[in-house]
């Protein structure tokens, strides 16, 4: 157990961060022309990465806080009908392209951070909600019956039986949502919310591959890192339940 945990919590994340630092150093040293060098400075890459990180963290946390309780709620028998409506509304919302959501809410929420967070939040809801719902639905009926037979209240059943059994599926939804989020956050730059997309979009519009590759590599590393850390959290928590 222990060496595994050491590798999982420290060595692998450190390796990934090391990769990110190497990518940054490489591209700052070899920007491929003065035009790309304007963006490929340590300060600018750090700012973009920090903006990207904050966009993903804030929107994902808000989405988890909204979608997990909602998923639990619509899995209760008394909310079955509302549940179907909610799930369909979110399903439909998911079909609107993310760029369109950005453009639509720009007029209401203004440019920048808030709108980007809102769009990313919208996009993270569905995977988390659906997995929470599916996870709880898939708890074997027998386990619930047995719990009832032991005299557990519905609240106890939820906390002691349904949530622990549904937990891996809920976590899978969260991981999916966060990884998608890292990618979608590259669009935030269109409405001046910054992020690694600034490197990528500038690279595309002035035809500088170094900018595109640097931005894409850094956001890919960030996605892997998030996925890995969430996997570690999941393993640590299931091991103790």
């Amino acid at each position, binding site marked *: 157990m222990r060496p595994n945990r050491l590798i999982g919590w420290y060595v692998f994340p450190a390796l990934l961060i090391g990769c990110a630092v190497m990518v940054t150093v490489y591209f700052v040293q070899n920007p491929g022309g*003065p*035009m*790309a060098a*304007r*963006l490929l400075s340590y300060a600018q890459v750090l700012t973009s990465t920090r903006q990207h990180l*904050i966009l993903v*963290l*804030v929107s994902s*946390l*808000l989405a988890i806080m909204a979608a997990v309780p909602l998923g639990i709620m619509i899995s209760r028998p008394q909310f079955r009908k509302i549940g179907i409506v909610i799930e369909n509304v979110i399903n439909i919302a998911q079909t609107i392209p993310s760029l369109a959501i950005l453009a639509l809410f*720009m*007029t209401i929420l*203004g*440019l*920048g*951070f*808030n709108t980007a*967070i809102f769009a990313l939040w919208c996009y993270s809801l569905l995977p988390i909600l659906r997995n929470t719902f599916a996870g709880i639905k898939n708890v074997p009926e027998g386990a619930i019956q047995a719990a009832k037979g032991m005299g557990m209240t519905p609240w106890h059943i939820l906390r002691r039986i349904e949530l622990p059994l549904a937990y891996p599926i809920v976590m899978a939804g969260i991981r999916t949502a966060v990884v998608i989020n890292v990618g979608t956050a590259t669009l935030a*730059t*269109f*409405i*001046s*919310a*910054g992020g690694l997309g*600034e490197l990528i*979009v*500038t690279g*595309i*519009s*002035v035809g500088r591959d170094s900018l595109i590759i640097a931005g894409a590599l850094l956001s890919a590393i960030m996605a892997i890192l998030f996925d890995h850390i969430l996997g570690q*959290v999941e393993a*640590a*928590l299931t091991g*103790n339940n």
Partner: protein
Amino acid sequence: MIKLRWLAVAVCLGLLIFGVVGCGGGGSSQNDAGESESETVIENWVFAADHEFAVRPDGLPKLEEEYGFKFDDVKVMDLGVTYGALKEEQVAVAMGFATDGRIGAFNLVNLEDDKKFFPVYNPAPVVRKEIMDKYPEIKDILDPIAEKLDTDTMIALNGKVDVDGMQPKEAAEEFLNDNGLLGEAVEASKGKVVVGSKEFTEQLILGQITILALQNAGFEVEDNTGLGGTEVARSALENGEIDMYWEYTGTGWLVALEHEEAITDSDEAYQKVKEEDLEKNNLVWLPYAPFNNTYTIMMRGVDAEALGIKSISDLADQINS
């Protein structure tokens, strides 16, 4: 076992606090910009630019060098949203295209490019020489129209279509009638002319204006407007599929005639492109319109007035003071 649970709670709380701090940080910077501008003392000269202009050596860096100033901060965004960002007071100055309809609709003003930094893009009707030889009166029909098309007029026309939802044809008709450019309608059929345009609002309006004016003068006109981009319209003209369309001097010089260096003087650009295109491609450039659809630096009208800023040099002085 219990410790790990607390660790999880601590991590979640940490992330949450991080998130809230991030939210607060993002929010407050916007408020700063909003507050400082409401009393027209602009402390933070934040500039909205698109991704390309912000880094191109002949874009923002050269502009700042040429006029000798530096913006406090640059916010990078898609070109279409800079107008809104400026209107919403999220930035103090923004770049855009000089004849966009939103400039009028959002009460923004173009700052004069007094050092002739930006390349010029004056539009002029480009007609095949064959057609000009056959119907020389086309020049007399289109000259007075081109004369009336200044930047403010074009902003208003684009605004009618893009902001108010009018059809390009209605806007064109209104413009011709308001300026008394149509005169007596001629019934006799003089011959057939095919008019083209590229596919964006301004071009569609120019195309419709041309069609209406020629129809009124007794020509049978085929409407071939909305031809995609420059490449499509230009090759249609060179192949004789259309007889004329409005092209911008800068585009003609850089794209059609494939020169590398942009020209920043209207007359010079027109004369050069006119001579070369006639010689090489048998195309006639009729006199150009005064409006210039180039990059522009914009401010909110109220701010510009309160601070007495009319040109980019004034802006530079204000920022440096």
